[in-house]
């Protein structure tokens, strides 16, 4: 099962189901009014007046009151049930809020077991608990997005944090890198498992991490994700295209030289990919060479620069 990488800027929206019901009520009365107006204009004013007269006479003969009263009573009942429903929803929201307060407290003090006495029966209280948990998770997700999507854990009684930077490529999660950072007295990286070819010290020096940790984490995440992307592309090319020979590569996957044969002409072509910008997983320069001279194949370089390595190889074969 593959997890989806986090999307940015999703704000939680609450659904208001009772709003819909109100609109429905409005709609039905409006419809009746417009219908009457239509009838009046098409048939002429005098005929309308005569019809009203007939209606009045029939009203006098018929016991109009019970029918009207019935309809009114029905509407009164409908409105009463609606009011009860709304009242119940308000009560639920209040209960959920109370539950949330106790739930949040439970999360921070893990030893305490505060049980809020619920007046409802157990089924209702379970449902309420679920709804409260749902809102709690939505808030957590929102906070997570605000932090920039990094998992942060408090360590050493609040004197430090451990930040996890996840890497992914094309929807598949790859390695996770961790940084243990001291917060007091100054912000300082104490331990990490970032490989040495990622310039972490440089990024730390150039960042503003004493005031905003994200000035370090965002460029670091860029570097790590770009590296993960390049590494995956390289792996795919090696696995999917066995005819491609790797002439040169490095641990950072930033300088690659591949040899492949053009299928129809059977000539060997040397393809050099230069990823000078280490924050990107697309090459900055692609160079083709065949029999010691530079290829005149002009459409290929654009292909390699705009799409990823393995895809480019597939497109080339077609």
């Amino acid at each position, binding site marked *: 099962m593959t997890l989806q990488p986090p999307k940015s800027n999703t704000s939680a929206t609450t659904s208001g189901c009772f709003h819909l019901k109100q609109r429905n009520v409005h709609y039905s009365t409006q419809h009746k009014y417009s219908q009457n107006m239509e009838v009046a204009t098409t048939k002429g004013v005098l005929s309308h007046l005569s019809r009203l007269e007939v209606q009045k006479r029939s009203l006098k003969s018929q016991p109009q009151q019970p029918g009207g009263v019935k309809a009114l009573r029905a509407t009164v009942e409908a409105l009463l049930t609606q009011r009860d429903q709304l009242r119940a929803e308000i009560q639920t929201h209040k209960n959920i809020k109370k539950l949330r307060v106790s739930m949040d407290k439970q999360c921070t003090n893990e030893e305490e077991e505060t049980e809020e006495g619920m007046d409802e029966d157990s089924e209702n209280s379970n449902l309420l608990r679920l709804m409260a948990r749902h809102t709690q998770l939505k808030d957590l997700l929102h906070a997570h997005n605000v932090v920039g999507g990094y998992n942060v*854990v408090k360590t050493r009684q609040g004197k430090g944090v*451990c930040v996890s930077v996840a890497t992914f490529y094309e929807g598949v999660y790859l390695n996770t890198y*961790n940084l243990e950072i001291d917060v007091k007295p100054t912000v300082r990286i104490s331990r990490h*498992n970032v490989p040495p*070819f990622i310039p972490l010290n440089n990024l730390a020096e150039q960042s503003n991490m004493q005031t905003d940790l994200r000035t370090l984490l965002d460029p670091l995440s860029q570097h790590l994700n770009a590296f993960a992307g390049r590494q995956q592309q390289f792996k795919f090319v090696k696995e999917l295209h066995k005819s491609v020979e790797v002439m040169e590569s490095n*641990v950072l996957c*930033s300088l690659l030289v591949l040899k492949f044969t053009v299928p129809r002409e059977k000539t060997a072509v040397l393809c050099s990919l230069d990823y000078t910008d280490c924050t990107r997983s697309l090459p900055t320069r692609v160079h083709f060479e065949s029999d010691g001279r530079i290829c005149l194949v002009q459409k290929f370089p654009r292909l390699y620069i705009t799409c990823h390595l393995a895809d480019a190889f597939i497109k080339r074969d077609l």
Partner: protein
Amino acid sequence: MDDSAKRLLQRLMRRIPTPTLRSALEKWGRLTTEQQKSMDFTQSKWALTERLLGICEENELAVKQLTDLEMIHVIDNPDQGMWYAFQLMDPEDDAKSVDLTQFKEQFKSHLRELVRNVSIKMKKHTDEAVWIRIAWGDTFSRPNHLKPTYIVHYLQTPYVFVTSITSKQKPLLSQALVLSTRYQAIKDANLSGRKLTAIRDLLMKKYQQVFPTKYPIPPPENNQTISTFVLLFIDQHIEKEQAELAANRLQMACEAFGGGMLPQLQSAVYKLETKFRDHSNKTMTEREEPFRCVVKFTSTNLLESFRHCASSGIASTPVTPLLSCIPLKGRNYFLITDNGPGPSSQRGQPQV
């Protein structure tokens, strides 16, 4: 074949054990299939050496081809000899775009400028490591192939691993490395060991590290065998009571040293320069010179031993920074001095 080639071959045959000899010869590719078949690997080493000598004379192989064979053997068996780690400092802007061809050319030209007669061989291994073999000579003598230096470097990383180098050769090698990798300086990383793979994995962070999470790691499986044995003698209730404490200790031990398989370091050396602090012994406390002592830990797998000490409670947790800085800083040689201002200071903070 001249004498030096014969001596080199004999030395090689002494160095290469018979089980790995066949694969090394195949990779070398200098023997024809009949010659390969004619080598009887059940014979004694001496007999094999003689046979190989004969084959090399048939094929007119010289020192150059024999050094290929040596390099193949060393690359496939890197965990022999003593390896020392060095760290390159202050990269220039173009350090990260140094490619293999440029590095090779620059290194060879710089080293040849510094040393008259030197034989350099460079080979790229499949795991992106660049292997360099240097046979040193000087103005008057030819390169000595019986005592070569081997160097391993991964491009775009600041680490270099070296074996079998003398103090006279070190500055020459350092200069050539610094210039060809486009860094500004090189220093001793204070990490050494018999296994290249271990010190490489430690510096390149290729082993599994453990970080604080909300959910501590479950205890490893081998603990179960120990606990079932111990249960015969210890009450099960005690085990249950101690379970949480044991889990905490294990978590702290793994955070300090790592989880899973750890790089196999063999020793750690602490050189202490401190002041004698027992006031009942005036002669010792009144010495001007610092009190020197050396503490050395040795083991077949030092980090594993430390981790087990911490997780079983022999060493107190949280793990002291003196021990946990071995994997943290990637070094196993430490010089610890006092921070205090004079011989009469009461509190000296150990400074690493």
